[in-house]
């Protein structure tokens, strides 16, 4: 049974896994290196936020309490009338700020 050199399945798998590990490591290293410059990359936004004294990210523009969760209070999610629908999923994702100390609210 003379056959030319056949590639074994285990070799294929091991090579594939090595490629995977390398790709994984590369991405992680890339991530780490960019991370280090995060402050730099986000400078324009943080500068703007400082100038305008912004308190929230513009993520969920559906409702007041989702647009400015840091400004919301425990009642904020209650809309003006009983038929007002909950905003999903942002309503579930976005809590009101929890006070550090119990106050009278």
């Amino acid at each position, binding site marked *: 049974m003379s056959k030319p050199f056949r590639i074994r399945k285990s070799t294929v798998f091991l090579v594939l896994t090595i490629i995977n590990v390398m790709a994984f490591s590369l991405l992680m290293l*890339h991530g780490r290196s960019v991370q280090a410059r995060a402050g730099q*990359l986000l400078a*324009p936004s943080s500068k703007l*936020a400082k100038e305008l004294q912004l308190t929230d990210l513009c993520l969920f*523009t*559906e409702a007041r309490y989702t647009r400015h969760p840091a*400004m919301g209070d425990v009642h904020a999610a209650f809309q003006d009338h009983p038929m007002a629908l909950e905003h999903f999923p942002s309503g579930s994702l976005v809590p009101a*700020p929890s006070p*550090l100390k119990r106050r009278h609210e």
Partner: protein
Amino acid sequence: MNRSIERHKNILEFSLSSLLRRKTKNLSLLAIYTLIVFAIASLLFFLSAMKREASLILKDAPDMVVQRMVAGRQDLVPLSYAKEIALFRGVRDVKPRLWGYYYDAPSGGNLTVITADKAPGTITIGSGVSRLRSATVGDVIILQSYDNQVPLMLEIKEVLPFESELAAADLVIMSDIDFRKLFKFPKDHATDLALTVANSRELSTLAEKIADKYPDARPILKSEMLRTYDSIFDWRGGMMLVMMIAAVLSFIIFAWDRATGLSAEERKEIGILKSIGWETSDVLLLKFWEGAVISLSAFFFGVIAAYLHVFSLSAPLFQPVLKGWSVLYPEFKLVPAVDAYQLGVLFFLTVAPYTFATIIPCWRAATIDPDAAMRS
């Protein structure tokens, strides 16, 4: 050493042959497994990145914001409060803020209107607004004011850069005068007050003092504001927790299927292997590889795909979920955030249970006596 490597490679070879016997089943398993890892890893990456973005962008938020509540709803703050609070010890500056929301009927989007030192009749808009209204520098935007339905005509002097989308996509920045005109805003009131404090350690005492003097005031500390975002993007809470539980359950189901599914056929095969010279340790190694091939592959494929999904493509698969009913949704490119601890937990949750679930049930079968095959 060489023999050991050869042994591993040979046994791995057979485990692959064994898996390939049921190609469809095992490929589907791999696909689903990868999908779950992909979903969880995407979420982990996304949340880590957002958390960092939030903390970096909002690090210079006001030290304290004072709101006023009436019957459980936020109401306007009288400017007299501002003057009196400015006299409190430790308060360096009190800035009455004018800001609010404007619903843009033509586009259906909600805009956040804030004020800054601008010439009346001119505005700066966020890049999201520019997209929404297809308007750029030089264009004139018309906003319906609350006053006599006379529309307000505002010229766009500047559009904020794309990089600032996450902070300012929906902003419309105008002058105080235009703001009061637009919303028919009462003259001696403000939306809230932004305080600058001399000593940040005094913040909570100051807040208490304010709350004591003005029972209807609601002070919010900077640390509380930032913590809101920490909890939104916390991978151990909220939606993420639900997803994690779902994923863990899926993995348990996979592992369970493996753990209890040692069929008579599998048992017989192990008996045959034992009878042709395989030892217990060889059989266990085989089962280990059968599990590891799938779980390792799924883990790497899933995580790599997740990384690319979140950081190269800005997580398009999450968009429908995050966008919800919003009309205006920010376009952003996240800065990669990689947390070794999280990835370690993910690895432990995905690879370990499945791999070991394949070995444990085989333990008993693997210790079968080699002569058992002679008897059957």
